[in-house]
Structure formats: C-alpha cells, structure tokens
C-alpha cells in the first residue's frame, strides 16, 4: 500500500455515490429476524462506528455486507453498484476488505504468504509470485509486523494476530474497510497502536466501518455512530450524542435503567 505523507484529514466526500449504502437490509434465520430493515449510507472518507448490545446483529450485519451471508431482504450498494448477495470474492474485488472477529490466519503458510494470498487473488490480481511476496512485505511493514514476516501465524501474540488480520485486509488496497471488533480483548497498551493505525488509514482517506464494544475506541475514531438493537437501527448520529441517548442507555443497561436514574 503506498503511504501518502501525513496531511490534514481528508474531508468526507459528498461527490459521487456513497462508498456503501444499504437499503432495508435484512436477514431471517428460520423464525428469528436477526437483522431487519437496516438502511444507512457511508460517504467516502467517513468512519462509521457500529455498536449495540449482545445479540444486536452486528456480526450478521458485517457478513451481509461482505457476502458471507445472503440477505433475505434489502440491498447492498457499493459505489452505487448493486452487489446484494454477491459472493465474498466479488465484494473483495470491489475493494471492500474486512477483518474477522475470531482471527482466521492460514496455518501452514508463513505470515508473508498469508498476506500474499490477498495480493495474488484480490483486486490487483498480481501473477508474479515474487512481486506478490514483496508487496506482502510492504503491507506487513505498514502494520508493524515486518520483522515477523517469515514466521508462522501460530507463533503470534493476540495483538499481533489482530494486526495480521489488518494486513490481510490491507493487501486488497481497499476503499472500504470493515473492522469486526478489532479491539476486543486487547489491553490498554495494545489498543493505542491499533488506534494509531486506524488513524493513519483515515488520514489517507480510507472509509471505515468499525463494529466495536470498546467505547473508548469508538469515541476515538468514529465520525458517526450507528446503534443496532435486536437487529434494527435504534439511532445514529454524533458519537457523544448517541452514547448519551436514553434509548441507547436502556438498550445496554436494562429496560428500566435510565428511568431509575432519573428518580
């Protein structure tokens, strides 16, 4: 990935179609409506934080966008193009990359090779092995794993394994990056470098959607926050506003909590 010199943050673009738009997106599993009627759009360069209590449908939501689960209703538009229900590799070739909540490294391959798979089969479709491996090395440098490139994924610490997920996603030179709870289980000291990496990506104009539980991270990176509750959009808006919204407090802390506080 070419690194641009750090400049002032790229403003959210209002020109052209939003990088991601969903219209009435929904998914039903048998009798359970896991996600229903989710509609929103993310303009280029914006970072959208997605929060919601357990069982809110956040993971399902990401999988619906990336094609790992088919929607049962609604549409997914990427750069204005309808890619609803497209397979994951088609979405990847549209320069939409993601990380997985439970890290999924390719065992039996070195860390460099792990990243190279994306360079070879992603949107750039490099054919020359040596080029792909060299490009993988560059991406690994970017995320701070350069020194570990020849080792195997099993040897990585939890924080480094998360960085490998980043690297695999960045190998696609994505326009849209979907982060699935990348801060989960990290100590405070480990969260800082991740926030810095995300920050540097934002400065380059990356559009990011981050599903998170760690509110500190949400507050630090999000331009807007979307709250999912029981599969539906509860509310959205500026981070601090949303987190002080009575309905959001109720969703997280219990159905009588906010009212009780007021007594």
């Amino acid at each position, binding site marked *: 990935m070419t690194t641009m010199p750090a400049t002032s943050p790229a403003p959210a673009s209002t020109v052209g179609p939003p990088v991601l738009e969903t219209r009435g997106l929904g998914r039903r599993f048998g009798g359970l409506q896991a996600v229903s009627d989710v509609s929103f759009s993310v303009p280029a360069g914006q970072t959208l934080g997605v929060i919601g209590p357990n069982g809110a449908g956040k993971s399902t939501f990401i999988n619906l966008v990336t094609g790992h689960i088919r929607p049962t209703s609604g549409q997914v538009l990427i750069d204005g193009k309808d890619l609803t229900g497209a397979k994951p590799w088609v979405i990847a070739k549209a320069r939409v990359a993601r990380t997985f909540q439970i890290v999924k490294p390719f065992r039996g391959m070195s860390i460099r090779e792990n990243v190279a798979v994306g360079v070879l089969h992603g949107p750039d479709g490099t054919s020359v092995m040596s080029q792909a491996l060299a490009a993988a090395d560059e991406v690994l440098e970017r995320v701070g794993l350069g020194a570990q490139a020849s080792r195997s994924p099993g040897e990585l610490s*939890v924080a480094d394994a998360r960085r490998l997920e980043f690297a695999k996603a960045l190998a696609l030179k994505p326009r849209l990056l979907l982060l699935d709870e990348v801060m989960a*289980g990290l100590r405070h000291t480990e969260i800082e470098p991740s926030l810095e990496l995300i920050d540097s990506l934002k400065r380059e104009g990356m559009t990011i959607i981050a599903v998170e539980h760690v*509110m500190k991270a949400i507050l630090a990176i999000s331009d807007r926050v979307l709250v999912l509750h029981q599969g539906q959009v509860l509310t959205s808006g500026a981070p601090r506003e949303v987190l002080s919204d009575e309905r959001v407090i109720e969703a*997280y*802390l219990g*159905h*009588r*909590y906010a009212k009780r*506080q007021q007594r």
Partner: protein
Amino acid sequence: MSMLEVAGLSAGYGRGLVLREVDLQVEQNEIVALVGPNGAGKSTLLRALSGMIPVREGSVRFRGRSLRGCSIEQIAHLGLSHVPEGRRLFPGLSVRDNLTLGGWRNRSKDVSRVVELFPRVGERLGQITGSMSGGEQQMVAIGRGLMSSPELMMIDELSLGLAPVVVDEIIARLPDIAASGTAVLLVEQDVDAALSVAERAYVLETGQVALSGKAGELLADKRVQESYLGIA
C-alpha cells in the same frame, strides 16, 4: 470464610489473557451479580470457575477446597452448578429428561423444587424442550441447574433473547432460590434487572474488577454507565 473465594484469578484462551487478577466472593444464600460490558470476561470467569478453562494464576476456593486443577465433573460434584449462556438444553429430550440429567450428582429425579419455583415448567414436563419458548427454556435450564441441589449456582446471561417481562418473571424467583440454600452468582447484561435482585455486585471491565459493592449503591453510581458506554 466465604463459600466462594476467588483471589488474583487470571485466565484466558490459548495464549491470550482475558481475566487479570480478579477478586470475588460469594457468601452462603447470597445473590451476587457480575455485570460489565461485552468482552469484559464475565463468561470467561464462569468458565474458569466451573473448570471448563484452566486457571492460569490465582486461587479459587469453594467451601474451603481449592478448585484449581479439578475437572469439570469434580467441581460439579462439589456443589457448583453452571447454567451456561444460551441455555444449552438437550433440544430433543423432554423437560423431565433434561431435569433428570441435571440431577445425576445425587441420582435425584425429584423435580418438586423446580416445579414449585416454575409452575409453567411443571405443566410441561413431557414437552420436548426444543419446541418451547426462550423464556420457558431458560426456566428449564435453571431448573436443571438446581436438580443437583448445588450450594452455588452460576447463571450466565439469562436475559439474552428474552423479553423484559419474562426476564423480570424469572429474576423474581432468584431470592427464593437463594433463601432455600443455593447461592446465586448472576452474570448479566441487563444491569437494571441484575442489580435490582442482587445483594452485592461486581463490575468487570476488560478483564478486571472495576467496581464492586452493594447492588443498590452501584445502581445509582454513574461509573457503571461509564464502563458500558464510555461516558457518563
């Protein structure tokens, strides 16, 4: 001495550590709530206590005995019962069979205590649990946990997927359970429900105990909201 005494507990999965130096006590016949945001390690703590994952550091003493290194069966035998997240009933079996399987510790088939607490379960002893509603399943799950007459029952996220009315109904039965000899350690997302029934509570945040104290006091403490939402 407390019935359950946890000191300096550290545990995790694989190479990572989820819990760091957790201290916690539960007294006889007490209801203690364990709350905290997602990913804080609440379920991990229960799993460490019931023997599903190994304790990396620290001590766990239950009724005076150390639980470290004990197998899941041994811990269950000692009187520590775990009602897991998501109920995990045996969906193809009847209510009565599910309950009986919970009573293997003392070969008990006596469902009277469960029926008394949850009359709705009593009316459906022959029904296949897979066909029951979420609330009814949760009642059966708790009933199953009670069949072995445990001294301490740990309940993991009973409110998940349940309507608030049902949650209230089930939570209301916990004081009876505690009073009749089974202390309860309640892990809950619904802070309001948990703190309204518990006597004491702990707030877990990123693997450590951030707050602890009397439930009523914590309910009024703004810091609880902060640990969930980042701001008060």
